[in-house]
């Protein structure tokens, strides 16, 4: 058996899906070929890492809903009619039209702002994945913010702990792009979730391109992994806002926050 033949069946082999007589020659080849062995080891290692990813169990309410599915209920059209689906479809259309606009020129992996945005989006995604388990609301914003302050030295003005439209879900310390930051998670009534990060930002630059006019402000804004991301500086702090909202919604929220902070 040569390398090509081995690699053709390596996936079946490492998953135990090969019959014993077919596995023996693969084993023999692996014993003598360092390059195929390396491929196998790297594959096993990555597969092992993916197995460690969190698997969020279904919420009890969902199990209950699924058990009650005998009754006639809304079908696909009902699902489609939900506001978030409409918003998602609209967002895709908007993205298609604005595609040339959202292209960011000069995006570099070593750019501190770029790292901050990437880190912010990763953290927002992680928060979304965890929300199901941790979706308790913050009942005492003052002490939540005080705790974040004591752990990060980042001042989170209690002025923006949500309002009539926005519910505060979490305020917690975090680290994005190796910088200590406060992460504040808000949701609107339709469960569109926005995370904003506040961090000391005196040394952080403001990109010259990609800035948009929102009210009298000119923050940096773009789409990243399907989220709208806004970055701005205010006083000694830098802020990154990552939102599930559509573009007008994100802009409005920015304006509200910029004024409140």
């Amino acid at each position, binding site marked *: 058996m040569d*390398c090509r033949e081995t690699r053709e069946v390596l*996936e*079946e082999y490492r*998953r135990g*899906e090969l019959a014993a007589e077919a596995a023996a020659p693969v084993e023999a080849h692996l014993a003598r070929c360092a*390059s195929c062995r*390396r*491929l196998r080891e*790297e*594959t096993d*290692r*990555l*597969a092992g*890492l*993916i*197995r*460690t*990813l*969190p*698997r*969020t*169990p*279904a*919420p009890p*309410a*969902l*199990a209950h*809903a*699924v*058990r009650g*599915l*005998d009754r*006639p*209920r809304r*079908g*696909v059209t009902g*699902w*489609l009619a*939900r506001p*978030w*689906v409409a918003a*998602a479809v609209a967002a*895709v259309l908007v993205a298609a039209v604005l595609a040339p606009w959202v292209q960011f020129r000069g995006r570099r*992996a070593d750019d501190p702002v770029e*790292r901050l945005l*990437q880190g912010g989006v*990763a*953290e927002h*995604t*992680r928060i*979304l*994945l965890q*929300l*199901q388990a941790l*979706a308790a609301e913050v009942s005492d914003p003052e002490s939540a913010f005080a705790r974040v302050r004591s752990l990060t030295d980042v001042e989170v003005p209690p002025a923006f702990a949500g309002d009539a439209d926005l519910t505060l879900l979490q305020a917690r310390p975090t680290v994005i792009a190796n910088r200590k930051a406060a992460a504040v998670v808000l949701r609107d009534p339709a*469960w569109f*979730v926005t995370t904003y990060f506040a961090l000391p930002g005196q040394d952080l630059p403001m990109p010259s391109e990609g800035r948009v006019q929102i009210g009298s402000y000119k923050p940096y804004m773009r789409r990243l*992994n*399907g989220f709208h991301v806004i970055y701005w500086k205010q006083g000694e702090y830098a802020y990154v806002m990552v939102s*599930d909202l559509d573009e007008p919604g994100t802009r409005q929220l920015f304006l509200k926050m910029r004024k409140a902070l």
Partner: protein
Amino acid sequence: MPQPDPDFREQTLAHLDALYSFALYLTRRPPDAEDLVQETYLRALRFAHRFEPGTHLRAWLFQILRNTFLTFYRREVRELAVLDKDVAGGLEESWDVEVPVPSMVTTVDLERALADLPEEFRSVLLLADLEGLTLVDIAQIMDTPVGTVKSRLFRARRLMRRRLSDYRAG
């Protein structure tokens, strides 16, 4: 809607957590994942008579879930066409491990690298490595030959290794 056999319903419920977890990785939003799972069950119960006893119920449910997802989120169609052309173009060049998995990988990095993958690649990795389905089951779920499942796995892992290594470097 014909009333499904209560046993059949119970059997499908055994897969609820796995379906929800997969739906959450696909949609990234708990309310979307819940809707997707509900829609999957609605279809599964409606089409229960089409399920062939003796075949893999788990794979059948995942197939319905993914098809439902694609019906509503078909924003990656263009990407797909490119991928399949790419896959048909031969794989030998991709065999070697040119970038290894970094020695330290955080869950955040993993989730980020996974979220960045096109849906085809993300799904194939989740089904193969997180859910532990067989290649034959994945081929059924993704409605593609086993050979294509394997090429997508190879490509998906190569992309993951590159991204993980970029994060470490960056």
